[in-house]
């Protein structure tokens, strides 16, 4: 039987465990399977160990008293748990946000609003010719992306894989590990400014001179050879672009030359699931306020903390103390913090209440959404009853 790796948004579904050895998972994925028993959180209230139900009850009491709550995270839990988290936020009239507000949320939103055309990774494997990794270095965060879905595998209509049937483009500010693989049938474009490349694509399509005219010209010409070309956009693209609208417009315009699709290359395993689940409910993908009935930059977790807008934070399966800048994370001290996490993360260490939960994909089944939007069913290796679903349900019932 095969397992699904919850290590990143590739959600590789071919992991095998044979004689205690974990086969096919990359290093990051393997560590989850190998070490999920290590560094586990214990139920705690204000530094004292308690039983799990007391921790949940205590959290419920805190939430009852709270006036402004934010629920944050859930990018590593299942869609089913995300739904409960969103329900809880609604019931509490709370704010809700996840890592995507400083990651690739905007791109997912543009896809869900049908502004950016998209496709599946299976179609990429079977049909894609030009593939552009733009500000994305899968080597770091999505180790198997290129070998499983994009450049290397042979596909139904691409039987010779990378050797002849693919054209790889890597756009980055530096010669990344991925850029080093751009050898034959490939192009590495080192940019200082991503907007200039966007601009060059426009200009070349209009027949004008441009900074990256040569590169853009080659890519547009190569694209004509296929009915499926794709851009994988990563964090580098998000932070490199001043104007997402212009990029969206560029993709649309390039589609007049040949079919071009966009797939986000973000890391968190089920970030897209969070975006989609919240979008279905509210029409926004993140930084949403149920009190105000809309999404806004002011409702991003970081803004809420910095502006002292919340008195309680429920942090689920994410570790802002490690991932946010110190001056933001240190504001957590000023609010009541409830951490729901399988692990004793640095954030759990400073929390007022810790509720230990289960590792999704290992101890809890359910659904996650891959970077391209495919819904993947997780397998369970060792079921654990106290999981995010159990905890969130209990809190909601207790309110």
């Amino acid at each position, binding site marked *: 039987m095969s397992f699904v790796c919850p290590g990143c948004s590739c959600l*590789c579904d*071919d*992991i*095998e465990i044979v004689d205690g*050895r*974990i*086969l*096919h*998972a*990359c*290093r*990051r*994925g*393997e*560590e989850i399977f*190998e070490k999920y028993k290590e560094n586990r959180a214990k139920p705690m209230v204000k530094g004292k160990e308690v039983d799990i139900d007391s921790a949940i009850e205590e959290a419920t009491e805190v939430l009852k008293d709270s006036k402004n709550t934010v629920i944050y995270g859930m990018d590593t839990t299942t869609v089913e748990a995300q739904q409960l988290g969103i329900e809880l936020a609604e019931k509490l009239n709370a704010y809700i946000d996840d890592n995507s507000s400083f990651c690739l949320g905007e791109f997912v939103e543009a896809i869900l609003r049908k502004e950016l055309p998209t496709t599946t990774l299976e179609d990429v*494997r079977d049909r894609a010719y030009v593939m552009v990794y733009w500000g994305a270095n899968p*080597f770091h965060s999505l*180790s*198997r992306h*290129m*070998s*499983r*879905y994009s450049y*290397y*595998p*042979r*596909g139904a209509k691409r039987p010779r*894989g*990378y050797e002849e049937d693919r054209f790889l483009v890597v756009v980055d500010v530096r010669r990344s*590990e*991925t850029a*080093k*693989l751009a*050898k034959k049938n490939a192009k590495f474009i080192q940019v200082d400014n991503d907007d200039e490349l966007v601009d060059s694509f426009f200009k070349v399509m209009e027949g004008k001179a441009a900074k990256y005219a040569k590169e853009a010209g080659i890519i547009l010409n190569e694209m004509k050879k296929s009915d499926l070309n794709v851009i994988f956009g990563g964090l580098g693209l998000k932070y490199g672009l001043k104007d997402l609208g212009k990029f969206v417009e560029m993709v649309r315009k390039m589609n007049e030359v040949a079919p071009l699709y966009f797939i986000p290359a973000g890391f968190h395993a089920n970030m897209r699931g969070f975006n989609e689940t919240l979008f279905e409910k509210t029409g926004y993908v993140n930084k949403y306020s149920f009190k105000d009935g809309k999404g806004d930059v002011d409702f991003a977790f970081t803004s809420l903390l910095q502006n002292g807008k919340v008195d309680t934070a429920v942090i689920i399966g994410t570790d802002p103390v490690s991932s946010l800048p110190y001056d933001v994370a240190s504001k957590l001290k000023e609010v009541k913090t409830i951490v729901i996490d399988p692990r004793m993360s640095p954030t759990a260490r400073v929390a007022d209440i810790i509720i230990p939960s289960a590792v999704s994909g290992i101890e809890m089944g359910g659904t996650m959404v891959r970077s391209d939007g495919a819904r993947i069913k997780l397998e369970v290796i060792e079921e654990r009853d106290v999981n995010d679903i159990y905890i969130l349900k209990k809190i909601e019932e207790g309110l």
Partner: protein
Amino acid sequence: MALNPMDIYKLLPKTNCKKCGEATCMSFAFKLLNRERKLEECTPLYEDKKYERQRKKLEEMLKPLEEATETGLIVDEGLCTGCGNCVVVCPVHVEKDPKGAAVGKGITIDDPILRVEDGAVKVINMQACRRYGKNRVLCVVCRENCPTDAIRFLEG
């Protein structure tokens, strides 16, 4: 970091004393590289104190030889991230595992050359590599597509 016989030769005693069974130190160097001889067979290196530093250097230099497989392929597991590129590109795998490695999935055949196990690539069945045996070819496909330079070949 390819080894070459000249670098080895420079550190040998260069006396051509023949105690190793070879006519010259240079030919001993060649055989060392091909793993037909072992360093210990040059007894002067071990008996004469003045060669001690050279010997230590040689031992250091020849270490990868012991780790290398029959085809001279060396995987540095510390560098490997388990990305699977090498497994998927290997032409032997593509031919033998059309529904697995060839299309990007974890390799399904029982005796692959390479397989990602516990997060890093392991050499399972070197005999199947195109660099092995009588009709060998100098394939470098796996190395060329490794993002971390975790794969090396002895002869460069």
